[in-house]
């Protein structure tokens, strides 16, 4: 059998949906950030599959930028988590409603 682009798209969709579901059901802010990474990786896989299929390097360039943005997002997100958990140890995403004004 032949592995076509569709197989990679289905795998990317699976990773994206698993990450999104995890983001909704988990309460630990650190695990929620990891789920965002899962979603980004699903999309990366889709980009690389299209780059291969269309014989275009642009898809791989976009993945490069996604990596940079993911690194920046994790740095700022973890900074926020450290700042919040230092104030209120053992807090979960449900307890963070104090920011709603």
């Amino acid at each position, binding site marked *: 059998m032949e592995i076509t682009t569709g197989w990679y798209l289905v795998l990317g969709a*699976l990773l994206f949906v698993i990450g999104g579901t*995890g983001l909704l*059901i988990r309460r630990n802010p650190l695990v929620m950030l990891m789920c965002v990474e899962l979603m980004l990786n699903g999309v990366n896989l889709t980009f690389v599959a299209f780059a291969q299929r269309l014989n275009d390097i642009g898809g*791989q360039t976009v993945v490069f930028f996604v990596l940079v943005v993911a*690194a920046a997002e994790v740095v700022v997100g973890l900074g926020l988590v450290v700042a919040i958990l230092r104030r209120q140890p053992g807090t979960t995403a449900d307890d963070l409603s104090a920011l709603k004004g």
Partner: protein
Amino acid sequence: MVDPIVFFIASAICLTGAFGVILARNPVHSALMLVMTLFGIAVQFVAQEAHFLAAVQVIVYAGAIVVLFLFVIMLLGVDKAQNLELSILPVQRWAALTFGAGSLAVLTAFIVNVREPVTGAESVGGIATGSENVRLLARSLFSDYVYAFELTSLLLVIAVIGAVVLARKPKDTEMVSSDSERSI
């Protein structure tokens, strides 16, 4: 063409890791499962001739981002097991599962139904393999996308400054707490 055995083994690794991330009770286990998924995706990248991205995936994601996660987990001491059943909104879990199943069904049905998901014309630039792949990626990055590249450097500087400002121990709150202790 991609070997089906490679694809299915790497997919199994990816999906096992992904389920591990969202189902593990201990955040440390979640982080290690994330490493597993990232390695599986790196294998998929190699299978699709994206060698540079596979290397960067291992170095940046598994080497830097997950280590940062583990570092924060250890620093804050939140590596205690979390009770997954404990939920303030029990309906949220079912809503999330419905969302997941629904969007997966829509996406998969779309991809499977559309026999040929790619409708655009093929590029003439090419996506050469081996070291030629790195050269093409660099040429694209430093010619077509050079402004975006410069903007990412700005983004990284902002992220570093933001992380330092956010994670710094706030001086004024310390003073407030010591004042309140004194008054008590």
